Structure formats: structure tokens, C-alpha cells
């Protein structure tokens, strides 16, 4: 468990303290995938670096499994860092070392593993990230996705309990992003390690995270389970991110809504109700005519969801709304 207790960080610039993170308190549970989303400069990079003290906090306490890491001596800190893996946007592999040597590197630094131990662990990890045949290549001979998989294998070498992902997929194409995210999700399930990832793409959060914190200008402005934050965003920044990830043009949507007749409802289906043929039966029951203005069916992590914006004309609206709510559909009246 990672507990932030009134943690803050500011940088000294020309004698003045510029805050990068305003006092923040939050808890990241053991074994969850926790996403931090924000635009560049929002403070998410600083936040993730506080966890392994690459950046020291300037106030507050950070408790990791009940130990205050802000008080660690440098020797304690080095031992602690071996239990926290980290992967990076630009992979940060050593170009002078082979794939196998890159993965072995943290184990060699730790100085507590024998050579055969290192060799067998490296083989195991290479197989886990499906790169066994590339063991003796150099990073420059690999594709971006392969490099990130080496990064993941390296981060896992010393069997960490926490994995920090610093924009781990931002330099990858969509397809490679998919496969890297799947690997992260699998690792989280298999090893039960806690993953903290920062990203500027809500889509990444939607695919792998259990909970998310949205950051804006050095503050966490919204936090909660991904399904809640994603489907019912409250803060304007969060809304921006959700719209962005759905590639919805807000102006166009407004125009569409203005042209539509009658009441406008936004329906949110989650889980099983996503697949039920509900609208037809509701229309028959209530005599309401509807047209679909926009809609989307997708997954949040493993849970299917659907979101429809409808305009309804005629019939008995109350009956329709009751029938929808009875079927576990979240109804929001837009107009």
C-alpha cells in the first residue's frame, strides 16, 4: 500500500519556490493498477518520481507498506529501490549492453544474486516477454515495442512489489501500445504487483487501470474507480480527457443536440446490460420514439459498457425512464 500524506513538492527557481505538487493525500492499494492522468506539466511526472524518491518530497510523508520512505538513508533507499521497478517513455535501456545484459543489470547492481541465479532469471524473463530469440541483440536492433518489453523484463528482474510506468506507451504506435498494456495487465494479475502508471491518454487508463487520479496544475482534481470517473466525469479536465479519448468533437456534438427534437437522455450501460435488447422493448412499453445521436460500446478493463445519447419524442417519458432504470441503466437527462 502506498500512502501519500499531505505530500508536496516545489522546485527552487531563482530563489523562489515553484510548486509542482500541492499538498496531496491519497492511497494506492496493494495489487491494484492505479492510473494518473494529466496534461504535460500537470505534475504527474513529479508525483510518480516521489514514490521511488528520484525526486525528494519537500513536505509530507510517503508511507510504503507502513514505512516512511521520505526518511530513508541513502543505503535504505537503494535497497528499497530494488523492490520498485520502473519503466520509461523512452525505455532508457543501456545501448552498450545486450538485451540479456540489460535485464541482468539490476540484479548485478544488487550484488546478492549468484551468476547461475541471474542467468536462469534472465532466461525466464526473456520467455515471459517473448524475446528469448533476441537475447544477444543490442537495443538499437529492436523495435519500440520490443524495447519496452525489455524495459519491463528489466524492471521485474529483482521481483519488485511495485511497478512504476512513466508514460510507458506514449512513444509506441496504437497496436504496440495494446500489446504492452496487455502484458502489464497480465503481469499485474499473475504477480499481484501494484502498478502505478502515468499517462496523458485516457484510453490507457480505460484499458488497464482499476482506479484513476486526474491531475491538473499540480493538484489531483478527481479520483475514483475508472468506471465512475470515465463514465461520469465531474471535473472539466476529466471531461476533456474523456471526450478526447472518444474522439468526440464537442462543438459538433452541441450542434447535433441543438437540432434534435424532444428530450435528450444519456444512457450508460455497464456489464451484462450492455448486450440486452432493451431500447426496443422500452419504446414499445412507453410509446416513446427515439433516435440515436451518438453511441459507443467498449470495455473498461474487462467490463463491457455502452453509452448512448438519445432524443426521445412522444409517449410516456416517465414510464420509459423507470423501465430503463429497472434494467440497471444509468439515465442522465441532458435536456
Amino acid at each position, binding site marked *: 500500500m502506498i500512502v501519500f500524506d499531505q505530500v508536496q513538492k516545489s522546485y527552487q527557481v531563482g530563489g523562489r519556490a515553484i510548486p509542482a505538487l500541492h499538498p496531496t493525500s491519497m492511497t494506492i492499494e496493494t495489487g491494484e493498477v492505479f492510473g494518473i492522468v494529466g496534461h504535460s506539466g500537470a505534475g504527474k511526472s513529479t508525483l510518480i518520481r516521489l514514490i521511488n524518491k528520484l525526486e525528494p518530497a519537500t513536505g509530507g510523508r510517503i508511507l510504503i507498506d507502513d514505512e516512511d520512505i521520505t526518511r530513508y538513508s541513502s543505503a535504505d533507499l537503494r535497497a528499497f529501490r530494488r523492490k520498485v521497478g520502473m519503466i520509461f517513455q523512452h525505455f532508457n535501456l543501456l545501448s552498450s*549492453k545486450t538485451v540479456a545484459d540489460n535485464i541482468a*543489470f539490476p540484479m548485478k547492481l544488487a550484488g546478492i544474486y549468484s551468476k547461475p541465479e541471474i542467468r536462469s532469471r534472465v532466461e525466464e524473463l526473456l520467455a515471459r516477454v517473448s524475446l528469448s530469440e533476441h537475447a544477444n541483440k543490442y537495443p538499437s536492433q529492436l523495435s519500440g515495442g520490443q524495447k519496452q518489453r525489455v524495459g519491463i523484463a528489466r524492471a521485474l528482474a529483482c521481483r519488485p512489489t511495485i511497478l512504476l510506468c512513466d508514460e510507458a506507451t506514449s512513444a509506441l504506435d496504437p497496436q504496440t501500445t495494446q500489446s504492452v498494456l496487455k502484458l502489464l495487465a497480465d503481469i499485474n494479475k499473475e504477480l499481484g504487483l501494484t502498478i502505478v502508471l502515468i499517462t496523458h491518454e485516457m484510453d490507457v487508463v480505460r484499458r488497464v487501470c482499476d482506479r484513476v487520479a486526474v491531475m491538473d496544475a499540480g493538484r489531483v482534481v478527481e479520483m475514483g474507480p475508472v468506471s465512475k470517473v470515465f463514465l461520469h466525469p465531474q471535473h472539466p479536465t476529466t471531461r476533456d480527457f474523456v471526450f478526447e479519448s472518444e474522439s468526440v468533437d464537442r462543438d459538433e456534438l452541441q450542434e447535433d443536440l441543438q437540432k434534435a427534437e424532444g428530450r435528450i437522455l444519456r444512457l450508460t450501460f455497464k456489464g451484462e446490460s450492455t448486450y440486452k435488447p432493451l431500447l426496443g422493448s422500452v419504446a414499445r412499453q412507453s410509446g416513446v420514439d427515439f433516435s440515436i445521436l451518438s453511441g459507443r460500446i467498449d470495455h473498461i478493463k474487462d467490463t463491457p459498457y455502452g453509452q448512448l445519447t438519445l432524443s426521445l419524442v412522444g409517449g410516456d417519458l416517465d414510464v420509459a425512464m423507470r423501465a430503463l432504470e429497472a434494467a440497471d441503466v444509468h439515465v442522465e437527462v441532458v435536456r
Partner: protein
Amino acid sequence: MEALMENLMGNVDWLEIGVASWDTLVMVGMSLLFSIIIGLPIGVLLFLFGKRQLLEQPVAYAVLSFVVNVLRSVPFIILLIVMIPFTVMLIGTSLGVAGAIPPLVAGGAPFFARLVETSLREVDRGIIEATQAMGANIRQIIFGALLPEALPGIIAGITVTAITLVSYAAMSGVIGGGGLGDLAIRFGYQRFQTDVMVITVALLVIFVQLLQMAGDRLVLYFSRK
């Protein structure tokens, strides 16, 4: 043919040329070795003490940088003369091959240190950060990540330093340093033996070419980017 050679190169004593070449080789080799031994740690310290680096130390950096700059700003021919008392103290003579090595190191080490500093700055900061995140201490960061990553740049630096030392070594002939430079000055310049001058210059050119080629090959061999 032999008559032609006799006419063109009447003054050339090939044995003496051979000895002088060997002396130059020894002067360059020894001074390069000591320049690396002294310059490498200074270069690493310059890098580490630098702004926003791992051991940021503005005062230590300023002092070290000043010493390096002073040695580098003195023209080598002056450094040769200024160093004489120190050289005598250190090895008993300021003449010959041995006497030339201390001033050569005094010129070569600070030059190489700057090249090391520059090539360490070329190492991606992300790699240093990643190594820190793995729990490495400063020694492990230097020997495990920084130096291996900067190796091609450092080898290129050694090549440039070696070539600079070839020309410095030739200059040391002025104060009785020995080697090809000494030969060129005593015979080529003072006795107007143009043929000796041409041969020594040609040998120096070949020597520099060989150094550059070997250096380039090594850089290529160690570059994984």
C-alpha cells in the same frame, strides 16, 4: 636507382630515423597512458560536479575547471619551458625521451579530461535516472552505466588526444626532447637537410593517419547505437 636515392636523400641516416621514430612512439605512448590515467578521473569529476549533475559542486567544479583551463590556455611551447624545473625535480632530467613526458602529460591530461566530460554529457539522462531507479550507488552508476555508454566518445577522445600528443612530442624537440621532432630541428632545420625534414614529416603524417584509422575502427566497434 641507388644513385638517385643517394642524390635525393644523401643526408638521411636510416638508423637514426628508426631510433627517432621509436622514441616518438615511446613518448606518445607513455604520455598518452598517463594522460588517460590522470585525465579520465578528472573528466569524470568535472562531469559529476557540473550543474544539475549527480554530485553538483559549484565550487569544486570552478576550481577544477580553472586548473584545466590554465593548463590548456598556455601554449605548449611555453608549457615545455615552464615545466623544466618541475620535470628535473620529478625525473632528474628535462632532456631526452623521459624528460619530454611530464610536459606532454601536463598538456595532454587536461585536454583529454575536457573530452571525457563532453562525452559523458552526451549520455542520455534517462539512462542515469533508470540506473538510479534500480538502486545503484554512485560508483555503480559511473562504472556500470556512464563509462560503458560513453565509451565510443571516450575512445574518439583518446584518438584526438594521441594525435595532439604526436604534434606536442615533435615540438618537444625544441628543448631537446628526442624523437622525430628533434631530428627535424637538428638536421632538417639547423643544418638545412631538407631530405631529413621531408622524411620526418612524412613519417609523422603516416603515424597520425594510422592513429586516426585505428581510433575510428575502435569507435565503430564499440558503437551500438
